[in-house]
């Protein structure tokens, strides 16, 4: 069992605090996707877990043991670097074999020239060779085994880096954007391979990615990180449907969630100067915001909450996204509709939009989620 606890980790580079108290409990065998905008500290966190960088404060506990003072090589973790970090003088096969050689062969067996004549070395070399071939065939790089990294494309290098991390059987895998440079087909395929490997090994994975599809489909939990803090760490569907913070709601989901300014006055929720619901158990405040996923909106007739003009639309075949310019809102509202509604969404058409208040996500002034009890929705709608 290799549970992994990250306990209040703080990291400062000089004056700037990059990680501001990260805490995360990861159970053995979990697949955690770490997502967040560029520069929020994902790689830094990964490197601290790996032991390549020391934290300014806080602790990392692996399998019940604090690893403070344990060097990276002894933490038994495996890592894919964002920059690949392949050894330029070694062939692809040798690159993948390095962790196996380093960890399973004695110093004498690894000596150049004489090493291979040491007892047990020949047999071990054959085993390593077989393992390297297996990893290479999984990642479709068998034909490249004799090349040097300098002779590979970015995506091929990335697969070699992945191969080097995956040949081992460590306590946890730390993958820093391992698929960012692959083409769409290979990405889907490798995604499947990694998920399969995760199931087979049952090892812990921490997976940094910018790709929401990867995060949503592969992980048991998604940790959304921003400005050096983890805003939320929950199962993918929860992160999408029930975000704790407006920044999480805005970050997860594509197209982005629609944010409407709203007002809460005497328990009545007003959007664009219309009462739309009565709420209780929440204090009055002026600048609250209402989040609506594109699929929470629906086309409606007259007397809708929002009325606007179609400014742009994208037909994806199975669904249609329309951007609608609503007077009084600074940003366009994005609607997801059925292809059957295509005709009503011609450019320049005036459309009305409606939604169930139950589908709306409410956030307070500071961006925290509000969970009021909805007493009455607008007359035209049912109480959610």
């Amino acid at each position, binding site marked *: 069992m290799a549970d992994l606890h990250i306990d209040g980790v703080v990291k400062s580079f000089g004056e700037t605090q990059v990680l501001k108290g990260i805490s995360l409990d990861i159970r053995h065998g979990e697949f955690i996707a770490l997502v967040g905008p560029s520069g929020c500290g994902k790689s830094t966190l990964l*490197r601290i877990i*790996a*032991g*390549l960088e020391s934290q300014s404060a806080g602790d990392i506990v692996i399998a019940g043991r604090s690893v403070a003072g344990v*060097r*990276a*090589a*002894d933490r038994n*973790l*495996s*890592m894919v*670097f964002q*920059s690949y*970090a*392949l*050894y*330029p*003088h*070694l062939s692809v096969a040798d690159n993948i074999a*390095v*962790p196996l050689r*380093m*960890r399973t062969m004695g*110093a004498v067996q690894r000596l150049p020239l004489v090493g291979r004549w040491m007892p047990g070395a020949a047999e071990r070399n054959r085993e390593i060779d077989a393992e390297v071939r297996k990893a290479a065939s999984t990642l479709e790089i068998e034909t490249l085994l004799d090349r*040097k*990294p*300098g*002779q590979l494309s970015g995506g091929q290098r990335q697969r070699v880096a992945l191969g*080097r991390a995956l040949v081992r059987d460590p306590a946890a895998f730390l993958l820093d954007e391992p698929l960012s440079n692959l083409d769409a087909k290979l990405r889907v395929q490798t995604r499947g391979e990694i998920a399969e490997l995760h199931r087979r090994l049952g090892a812990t994975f921490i997976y940094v990615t910018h790709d929401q599809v990867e995060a949503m489909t592969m992980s048991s939990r998604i940790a959304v990180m921003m400005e050096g803090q983890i805003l939320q760490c929950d199962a993918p569907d929860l992160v999408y449907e029930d975000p704790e913070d407006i920044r999480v709601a805005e970050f997860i989901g594509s197209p982005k969630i629609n944010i409407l300014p709203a007002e809460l006055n005497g328990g009545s929720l007003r959007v664009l100067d219309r009462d739309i619901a009565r709420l209780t158990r929440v204090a009055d405040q002026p600048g609250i915001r209402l989040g609506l996923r594109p699929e929470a909106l629906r086309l409606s007739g007259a007397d809708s909450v929002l009325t606007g003009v179609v400014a742009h639309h994208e037909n994806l075949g199975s669904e249609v996204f329309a951007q609608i310019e609503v007077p009084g809102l600074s940003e366009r509202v994005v609607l997801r509709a059925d292809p059957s509604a295509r005709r009503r969404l011609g450019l320049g058409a005036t459309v009305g939009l409606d939604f169930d208040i139950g589908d709306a996500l409410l956030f307070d002034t500071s961006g925290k989620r509000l969970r009021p009890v909805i007493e009455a929705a607008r007359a035209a709608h049912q109480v959610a």
Partner: protein
Amino acid sequence: MAVTEIPVAAPAARSVEASQRRTGWFLTAPAITLMGLILLGPVLVALVLSFTDYALGNSGFNWVGLENYEKLFTRSTYEKMFVATFTYVVTVVPLSVGLGLGAALLITSVGRFRDLYKTIYFLPVMATLLAMAIAWEFMLHPTIGMVNRTIEMGCGTFLEAIWPFMAQGCEGGFPLWLGDQRYAIWVVCFVGIWQGFGFNMVLYLAGLTSVHRELYHAAEMDGARSAWERFRLVTWPALGPTTVFVVTISCIRAFQVFDTIEAFWPQGAGPNKSAYVMMFAIFEKGVQQNLIGIGSAITVVFLGFVMFLTLIQRWLVERKVHYG
């Protein structure tokens, strides 16, 4: 430039190619002329003169065939020359390269005073060797020199019991260093190393900055625990091109050693010609004794060595240590 031969080339294409070729020659002409005048010309002259008995001031000369070369490879003076030169090269090159690398690694690993150390080690490179040689001459003076007086302090201590050199010295006096043919060439080697390794260190420091930092992290994750393993896996391979360059430069510089010997022994190149290196021989024969023929022959042999080293370097650079 790769020129692919097309079987049926249109005449127009051929004339374009020809004019390009002409332009190419035209543009490189100044460089070629200069190289011929100041580089190849003198070498050819030396080569021609090495087959003659020419002396400066003579109106003519006689062809002597290979006589000069025969002398070079049979006379005992020249045997001493080759022995001294190779002793110097074989000692100074590995040690100054090794020390240069060691110093560069140490300097990059210390956090503070980095620039101070760099300056200290680089000082001997910048100093005039002639002046430095005089300083060394004082230090190595048999009786009042700092070196022998420092060693003398070991007399009467346990060192005398465990180190035969000490025991002998305390009884019969310490070496004359510059006056003893057993030590003379080694003193020259020592000064050469002391003076040269700072230069190699600077080259290695430059080489080390190009090593990708993340590779050390990858090596650490792959289980390279000791500094030696990381050195073998990351640093040494990355320094391959630098090493080839440093070794070649050091070899050529070692073949060229002259000023130390000229400063220590202006007349005789060491006791019993024990430090009679090639450059000194060229100077003595060609300039001091006006034997241009034999001087040219030594020069040609010298150029042969340098050429050979350069070719090895080119070969290594092109095939082995180039990672693309």
